[in-house]
């Protein structure tokens, strides 16, 4: 029977499995990042804390004389701790086990660390890159042991997990999305850019006195959620353009195209074409529509997706379409304010401008010749924005020059795949070199 004793046994087993998983990862210290080591130490504290707290409280219930009451209290105790253990298993174990050096782009770690420190100054935030077997990329704050154990006196340690698909370890497109859009989320959370927007109650759902008509409360709640979720995505896209320049836009369709239709809105994200329109606009406003080679592509995107904001919402769930449409209407009007707040919250030296283009073109020439571009002159490193934009320019050209260098061809699917792989390798090598030389922001 599923009584308190059985629950206690199951909980003990799960804690044991968790401890074994931690030990397994700890046994390979050579492949652990500093962030992972800190997370493992923190997890040890959490597991020990859970075990001790649980055991003490379980024994405290010995004092309860009423057997039914004791059983009920213990069952409830198990339930509470099961939730904690579930949190650890669901959220932390995948981060731990998927962070092996062979699975994640380790060359990006110094860049990620630097971006996190700049985006959230003053916070003790440890980023951890980890990979997943599915094509998924995301950023998430992880609960620390202090949070799990509700220990207010514990040190203020926070963890930030950044998930990347294992299949795309060396993918330039994914690197751009990770460093641009996903880091944009952190900047948004830190500066409350999207959160600062308080959406008005739509006129059609108001009573005569201006308050919400409760007949529309479900739609209103959905509307508020759409504004919050879609607002975050739009703001992260703006930050991505500011931080990386054109590659933020150029890489986006490639990454999102693998998983979503260009004109389908979802519960969490506005349709990709609306976001492309926003990024093309943002890049035009910051002068990138005029830069050599890529400027024309930015203009082309702006023209192709010019009507994307006017298009009606295309959401799978018809019951939510009206709420989503209202959300999009107010968000669209809020975009200029989002842009202003993003720019104001970002240190000037972190905002990429067309001034980088001379270096980006030089770096592109290097990659075309089959050379890494981490260094623009002896001992002087290129920034991550220069490297990624240069790489994308080689992609836009169809990889022909690079194919000739490696004695391959870029006319067949197989040939293109091989040349792309070489380009990815050159870019990763460039980032590694830039890290070593002291990459500029």
């Amino acid at each position, binding site marked *: 029977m599923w009584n308190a004793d059985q629950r206690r046994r199951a909980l003990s087993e799960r804690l044991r499995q968790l401890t074994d998983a931690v030990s397994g990862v700890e046994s390979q210290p050579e492949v652990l990042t*500093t962030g992972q080591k800190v997370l493992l130490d923190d997890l040890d504290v959490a597991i020990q804390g859970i075990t001790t707290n649980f055991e003490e409280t379980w024994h405290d219930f010995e004092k309860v004389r009423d057997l039914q009451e004791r059983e009920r209290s213990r069952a409830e105790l198990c339930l509470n701790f099961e939730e904690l253990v579930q949190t650890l298993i669901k959220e932390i174990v995948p981060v731990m086990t998927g962070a092996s*050096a*062979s699975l994640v782009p380790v060359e990006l770690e110094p860049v990620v660390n630097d971006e996190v420190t700049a985006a959230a100054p003053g916070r003790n935030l440890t980023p951890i890159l980890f990979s997943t077997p599915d094509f998924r990329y995301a950023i998430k704050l992880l609960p620390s042991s202090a949070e799990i154990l509700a220990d207010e006196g514990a040190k203020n340690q926070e963890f930030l997990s950044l998930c990347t698909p294992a299949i795309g370890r060396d993918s330039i497109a994914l690197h751009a999305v990770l460093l641009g859009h996903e880091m944009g989320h952190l900047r948004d959370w830190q500066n409350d850019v999207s959160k600062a927007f308080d959406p008005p109650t739509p006129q059609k759902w108001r009573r005569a006195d201006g308050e919400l008509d409760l007949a529309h409360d479900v739609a209103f709640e959905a509307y508020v959620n759409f504004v919050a979720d879609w607002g975050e995505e739009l703001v992260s896209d703006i930050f991505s353009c500011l931080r990386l320049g054109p590659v933020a836009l150029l890489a986006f369709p490639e990454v999102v195209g693998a998983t979503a239709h260009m004109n389908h809105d979802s519960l969490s994200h506005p349709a990709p074409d609306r976001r492309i329109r926003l990024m093309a606009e943002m890049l035009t406003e910051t002068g990138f529509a005029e830069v050599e080679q890529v400027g024309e592509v930015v203009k082309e995107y702006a023209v192709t997706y010019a009507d994307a904001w006017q298009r009606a919402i295309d959401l799978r769930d018809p019951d939510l379409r009206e709420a989503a449409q209202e959300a999009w209407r107010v968000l669209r009007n809020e975009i200029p304010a989002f842009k202003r707040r993003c720019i104001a919250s970002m240190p000037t030296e972190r905002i990429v401008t067309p001034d980088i283009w001379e270096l980006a073109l030089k770096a592109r020439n290097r990659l075309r010749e089959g050379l890494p571009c981490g260094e623009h002159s002896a001992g002087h490193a290129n920034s991550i924005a220069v490297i990624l934009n240069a790489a994308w320019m080689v992609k836009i050209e169809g990889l022909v020059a690079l194919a000739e260098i490696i004695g391959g061809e870029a006319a067949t699917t197989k040939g293109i795949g091989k040349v792309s792989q070489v380009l990815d390798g050159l870019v990763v090598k460039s980032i590694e070199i830039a890290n070593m030389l002291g990459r500029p922001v």
Partner: protein
Amino acid sequence: MTVAVPTKDQLLARLRSDDDKFKIFPTPTEDQVGHGTVDLRIGTVFLSAERSSLESVKAWEPEEAGRLFRETQLRPDGSFAMHPHQFVLASTFEYLAMPLDLSGLIQSRSTFGRMGIIAATAAFVGPGFKGSPTLELVNLGEVAIILKPYLAICQIALFTADEKKVRPSRYQCSTRPKFAKEPT
């Protein structure tokens, strides 16, 4: 044609010239360059043989032998233990771009050779080659030796060449150690 060894000054001047086709990335410091040689560092990826169910490997099918090798990717602050008599493939951290008038041989540096770690073969780097050459390393000593990424473990000895046309290597533009491909 007379084969000559370039001097340190000649190498430094060529490596720092924007127009010269001879490049090493990152650009070596003055300390890395010697008379006719440039010290090279080891990268972060190692391919090491594992015990497996394969009874033997046919010398004429090197790609099959590649199945014996497991890749270890280190973080910059990681380390790799080379056990006595172990054979591993690694690559240089530096990325070379050879001009048509130079070729080179990669050899272990004497400090490491005396500890027992040697580059098993002097890898030939031909004119026109681009990439991080694969190193075939063996620990001939009796104790394990710990390697760390970016240790200057080997050097390329350079000499003049007179190639007229680039013939891309099968390993052209590689940035990680590669197992052997089918012989051509």
